[in-house]
Each structure stands twice: as structure tokens, then as C-alpha cells.
């Protein structure tokens, strides 16, 4: 299943569709966004992105705009675009300056601490969430509250949910959905809107402006999917 189908699927969720398929699609969507926000685009990734299909009407205006902007950039992309995107990645996420306002810093702590500092309370909470779910960082050397890691956390829980549903372990699946919803509310949706706003301000290429919009649209849709799933569980109970 292609990553963009998450938006399409959400329109039918939760009654009529295969929940394993839905969770797998969510995991792929989170995985793709985590990759785009973790490091610069390399040649294989650019080629793969150019092979994607971009839905035109997902039902979410931000996601639509994000897909359109990414499509417009990628259809004109060539060898030199890798360098251009690398420059824009640094400009957008690293910047220069020491006042905490010179880039869209991809860490939750920056957006939730008074002095916009790294490794604050948000990082400790995210680390606790990872440990509660028996996850630990492997090759990662930065704060755990990086946007890519938070998105990968959702990816991992989505995959576990798919496995639980496939194994007909409903209780575990429901618990996993609850955890994802809580993490989405307590962390991602708590700071990503501000982060996305900064991304759109600092990015010069329409590609990263599009990634910002797609990220926001994706999270909004995912919140709706998880809400609907939990409501259906509550009704059944």
C-alpha cells in the first residue's frame, strides 16, 4: 500500500475497512514523514519520491496543498536538486544564530520550554514513553524528542497494532491505539503546529513547505482516525 493512501483510507474508517491495512498504511505514512524530516534527501530517496503518486483531493486541504507543492517541486527536480534540498534542509532545521529563533528546530523541547532549550521536560517525557513501550534508541545521538523519532514512535506502535489485530488480540490492539492517541495529543499535536509554521517561514523550496503542510494534514487526519476508532470501541463496550 502506498503511503499516501492513509488520507483516502481515513474517510472510510473505521467500520468498513481492513484495520490491518489501515494500521500498515499509517505506519508507512509516519515512516515516510520521519525519513523526510530526519536527514537530507539523497539520490535514491529523490528517485523514490518521484515515483510516488500524489492524490489531488484527500479531503484535507493542508494535505492537498502539501502533496501539490511536493509534486510541483519533484516534477522539475534533477541532479542539482539534491544539493538544493540539502541547503534548504540546513537552512530550515539548523539555521545559524544562537537565539533559538533562527530555524524551525525539530525538537519538542524547543517549542515547549520557556527558553527554547534542548533536552527539557518534553524530552524526559518522550524518553519515558519509549521506555514504557520497551523501545530504546539505537544509532540516534540527539534528543529523543526530535520530530523524526516521535514520528517513528507512532510508526512502531502502528505496526504493533497491525500485528495485534492480525493475531486477533483485540485488547492489546485497543490499548495500543489508546497509547498512540495519547502520544499524538500530548506530544505531536502539542508542538507540531508551531513547528510547521516555522518550517514554512524558513524553507525556501516548495518541497519543504509542502512537507510541512503534509505533516500537519497527516496528523490532523490521523487524529480523526484514532478518535473514530476509540469512539467505536467505547460504543461497543
Amino acid at each position, binding site marked *: 500500500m502506498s503511503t499516501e493512501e492513509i488520507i483516502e483510507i481515513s474517510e472510510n474508517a473505521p467500520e468498513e475497512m481492513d484495520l490491518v491495512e489501515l494500521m500498515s498504511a499509517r505506519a*508507512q505514512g509516519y515512516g515516510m514523514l520521519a525519513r523526510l524530516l530526519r536527514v537530507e534527501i539523497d539520490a535514491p530517496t529523490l528517485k523514490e519520491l518521484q515515483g510516488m503518486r*500524489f492524490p489531488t483531493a484527500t479531503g484535507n486541504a493542508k494535505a492537498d496543498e502539501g*502533496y501539490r507543492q511536493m509534486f510541483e517541486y519533484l516534477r522539475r527536480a534533477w*541532479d542539482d536538486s539534491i544539493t538544493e534540498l540539502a541547503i534548504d534542509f540546513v537552512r530550515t532545521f539548523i539555521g545559524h544564530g544562537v537565539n533559538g529563533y533562527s530555524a524551525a528546530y525539530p525538537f519538542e523541547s524547543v517549542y515547549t520550554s*520557556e527558553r527554547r532549550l534542548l533536552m527539557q521536560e518534553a524530552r524526559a517525557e518522550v524518553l519515558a514513553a519509549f521506555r514504557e513501550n520497551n523501545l530504546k534508541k539505537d544509532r540516534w545521538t540527539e534528543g529523543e524528542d526530535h520530530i523524526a523519532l516521535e514520528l517513528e514512535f507512532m510508526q512502531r506502535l502502528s505496526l504493533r497494532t497491525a500485528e495485534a489485530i492480525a493475531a486477533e488480540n483485540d485488547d492489546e490492539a485497543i490499548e495500543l491505539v489508546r497509547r498512540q492517541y495519547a502520544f499524538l495529543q500530548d506530544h505531536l499535536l502539542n508542538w507540531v503546529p508551531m513547528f510547521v509554521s516555522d518550517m514554512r517561514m524558513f524553507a525556501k523550496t516548495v518541497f519543504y513547505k509542502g512537507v510541512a503542510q503534509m505533516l500537519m494534514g497527516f496528523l490532523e487526519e490521523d487524529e480523526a482516525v484514532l478518535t473514530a476508532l476509540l469512539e467505536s470501541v467505547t460504543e461497543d463496550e
Partner: protein
Amino acid sequence: MTEPNSADRLTNQPNGTAQAQDELTDALELDLYGDDDEFDPLEIDYNDIDQEEMDDDNPYDTIDYPTIRNMPEESRHHDPVYSPAAQGSAQAAVQLMLKRNPARRPVLLSIMGLCEEGCASSVVTERVTEWQKDNLSVYSPMTLCRMLERAGALELEMPEVSEEHEVVEDGVVYLEITDSVDPVWRTTEAGREVYEQCTQGAEFREMVLVRDARYLEVYQAVMERIADEPRTKQDIEDFVATFPICQKPLRFGNHFLDILEATDAIIWSDHAWRITDLGRTLLEEVRAAAKDAPADPSASVPSPSAPSPAKEA
């Protein structure tokens, strides 16, 4: 995506250990800035900060540091180092860029030659990668082309982007990218001029036959030695050390290698210096010039440690 199920920043671990719980507790109990409950970042006015009141360790002191928000608009843009505007003409800009990037000179010139009739960027990338396999650079092939473009030696011709292609599947409309873009690089008139000038040996004649003429016999011997077979730097160093003229003032082999490389007479490839086609042609001129040149008095000073190349021959 590339890593659909990777999540390799996170790995499963067995049940949380007591140590991990302790670390977590410690982390949650940290309260380094508990006194700043009143802080509101939105209240900071960067235009109204009194520098006189700043302490050295004041975390709000951002005036001393360059930031995007307080940087003058004109400082945010940097003109290219090598450009027709900076050097007065495209020819001068390209010449200066070649002079100040001696290690990139062969590949920069080769790009200008390759693109004389126009060349697709994918082909340029492939060829430049091949050319640089013995002389790696942190610059990507397209970065080198962009440098030449800014200096006025190349032009980029972007092709028309094809019409949008839509596909419908299960009632959902998708956009697809059907054609890849492969722009064409073309050498400009100024680039051609510089290329012709550099590849016809004009710089070699100026440097070797005029400015460094007193060492003609050394140049000739070094070029002949390299033409015989590829040589290492140490081999040339040892060889040049046998010339009396190179004893005072002391001239190392590297000097001659530098000049010959900078004027395209030799090239480093596969762990050795090799003569180029241009170098073979110019060697004849060096021989003729050396024959006509008056003998240098310093050349007659016998070397105490090594026989002269003439005697060796």
C-alpha cells in the same frame, strides 16, 4: 519509502530495567530553571533590548550574536566570488577560478570542453565522476557546473516540463511524474575562449618558457622522465635534487610538478604523475627552447652529492 519499517532509531528492548527507571526519575526531577515561572518568550522585543543592561551571562542577550532576524538585509546575500561582475569579465572570472582551484583545474576545463556542443547533466555527472576517481572532491559534479555557471563559463538550458499526468484509481485522482528532467549545460562564448586559451598551452609557455626559463633543462628532464613512464612524487623529488641549479636557491621537485600540473602538462592518475597529450606536444617546444637558451652560470656549479643528469645520460 526507503525505510518503510525501519524505525532504526528506536529498537525494542526487554522489559525496563531498574537502572533505566532510576535514570528516568532523575531526569524528571531535574528543575534547573524553576525560578522563571513568569517568563513569556512572546514578550521579548528584539528592537528594544538595552545592551548596557546586559550581563555577560544573560541568556536573553542576543545582540552580540549574528542572527537571521537582526541581520541587515544586505548582509544576507553574498555575491559569487568568481563572477563577471566581481572580476570585470567572464573570461577574467573563469581564469581566476582556475588559478585559485588548481586541483579542480583539469576537471573544470574538461567540463567546459565537454559542454561545447551542449551536454545533458546526467552525462556530465557520469563523466565528471569518472574523471575525479583519482582526485576526489567534496564538490559534486553539479556544484562544479554551478561554479562555472556563476563565473560565466556555462549556461543551463532547462527543458520544458511535460504536462501534468493524472491517473484515476478506485475513484481517487492521483498526479504522477512521468518524465525525468535532464537539463543541458552549454559552454558560453567566454568559456570557449578560456578553454581554447588554456588547452593550447599559452599558460605553459608563459610560465615555463618565459617566467621560469632559467630552469628549462630541469623542466625538460622532468617532462621526459614522466613521458617515459608514470612517476611518483618522490621519484621526481629525488631526480630534481640531482640538478645543481636546484641547489641554490633550493628548488624542490614539487615546484616543477605544481607548475606542470597547473599548466595541464601532467596529470595525477592511478597513483602516479603522467604526461598529457598537451604535455607531449609542449615537450618538443621545451627541447627547442632549451637548445637555444644560454647556459646558466649556476648550472655549472658541480653538485657535491649527485652526478648531473647530463652525465647520467
